């Protein structure tokens, strides 16, 4: 049987890939995919804990996370489209009207 720590390590690695992607990528769609990757890494953690603890809450939590991620994707893509209509670019560095 695969021990719990392997699942946790895999999800930590996936989460880190997502974080690094958000930090270094410049295309909005890729950024968005990296965030989805982070959420799915969390789902893996939840499911593996759920199995390890013999408790169903973790699995139910995953369903809620997936539903929320879908809603977030719908809104996110709508925002990206409205920005693209006005500016015709998908590069976050060009969304620079408001200076940090």
């Amino acid at each position, binding site marked *: 049987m695969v021990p719990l720590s392997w699942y*946790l390590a895999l999800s930590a690695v996936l*989460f880190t890939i*997502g974080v690094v992607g*958000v930090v270094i990528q410049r295309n*909005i769609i890729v*950024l*968005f995919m990296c*965030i989805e990757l*982070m*959420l799915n*890494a*969390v789902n893996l*953690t*939840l499911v593996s*804990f759920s199995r*390890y*603890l013999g*408790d169903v*809450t*973790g699995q*139910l*939590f995953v369903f*809620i*996370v997936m539903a*929320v991620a879908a*809603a*977030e994707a719908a*809104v*996110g893509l*709508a*925002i*990206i489209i*409205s*920005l693209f209509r*006005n*500016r015709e670019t998908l590069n*976050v560095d060009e*969304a620079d*009207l*408001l*200076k*940090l």
Partner: protein
Amino acid sequence: MQLENLGLYYWAIAPEIIVSVVGVIIMMVDAFSSRGARKLNAVIALAGLIAALVSVVMLDGLGSGSYFSGMVVIDPIRIFFSVTILLAAIVAALLASQFLKDEGLPPGEFFSLLMFATAGMLLLAGAGDLVTVFLGLEIASITSYVMAGYRRYDLRSNESSLKYFLLGSFSTAFLLYGMALTYGAAGSTNIQKITAAIASGQVNYPALLLIGAALMIVGFGFKIASAPFHLWTPDVYEGAPTIVTGFMGTGPKVAVFAAFIRVFVIGFGPQDSEIGIQLHTTWVTVLAVIAALTMTIGNVIAISQKNIKRMLAYSSIAHAGYALVGFLTGDFAPVAFYMLAYSIMSLGAFAVIQLLARAGDQRTEIADYAGIGFEAPALSFSLAIFLLSLAGIPPTAGFMSKFYVFKTAWDMTPELRWLVLVAVINSIISVYYYLYPIVVMFFRPLVPGFIKPRIAGMTMIALILTLLGTFYLGIMPNRLMNAMSRPPAVVTQITVK
């Protein structure tokens, strides 16, 4: 059949149900009525929010308890934070009517989004389980992303919405990972059960719990705009329509503070076990440093701002820092009082800015305010009062809330007195940038092209409400403070039904 036997107590989530149903009703009314149903939508929204406010007050009469297998709780934290959220939503709804008319934006979607955002925030304030915390936070956040981009032909609004969305979902992922690790360590997502597990020392991997708590601090820290997770705030606040900025800067922040208190102050409170002590001292130290950083960064950068919305964005960062000082006292009352006072004065200030900015937020530079003091005296004096209140000058709400937070922190946590000193020094620094727009308004020659704004009836009501609130909390805070000073121990002793 008894619904109670199934563990369904619908009245326990009555405010959330009312607000969500009204949101759907507004969508329906908007679909089946002519284009000019703006006033009707506003009235329905206000009626719904007031009904929800009444139901929150009625919930208070039922005493503390936890429902839906511990998913939702009723306790003083929920009551006070829900009232603040609903008041912020009422003021936002009052202001929205004129904003939507002046900008020619569709009203139905705006009011229903406002309702759904409020429902999410109310759920967040009443969440007794990490699952409901996540759900409430996301309902509130996703609707706020849309509201920030509501002026969809305006590039600034698009950018604000995009940045809010990307950084908001990024931070949510951290929060969620923290929740997952806490679940693994404590074996439950219910906050009371997590507390019980920590108190008895039955934690699977203590390291996981500490990492989980750290990740949750990152997630919550993003949402309340505390340093070093505050970088999104100025851009998002500047680009969003002013009325949305006012609502975003108050409602979600209040709700996240409620959940933050429930997870950390109550959930991860001081316990006798080894892991409990370690966890508590660690997060208190980390948050004390974050609070000091947040106040200092917010105030110092606010000084150099030329745009009043950006200035207020940094000011809101600083205020999150002051509220965190109250947070560290281990009592919810100072934070609840602070957030109520902050919401009232901040919304008032944004209401005036909205009126002076004209359609499309064209005039938001501080230089645009030159000499308007005696041209538009009602607005200028109101703005001056709100800014003085934000600075903490007596006899306003800002002074009383700061005094309450600092006094409680000084008395209850002697080891954090250095933080109170930092906070007091910061409030003194902040007076400079709050006074600057007032000086510009009253003592500079009039800027060319100034047109005195029209004030619609509902906007007037909102301004009067916020002004009255600012003075009421500043002069007669006793009643509210006494109501809040019920012992927080009551909160922790709820049994899961």
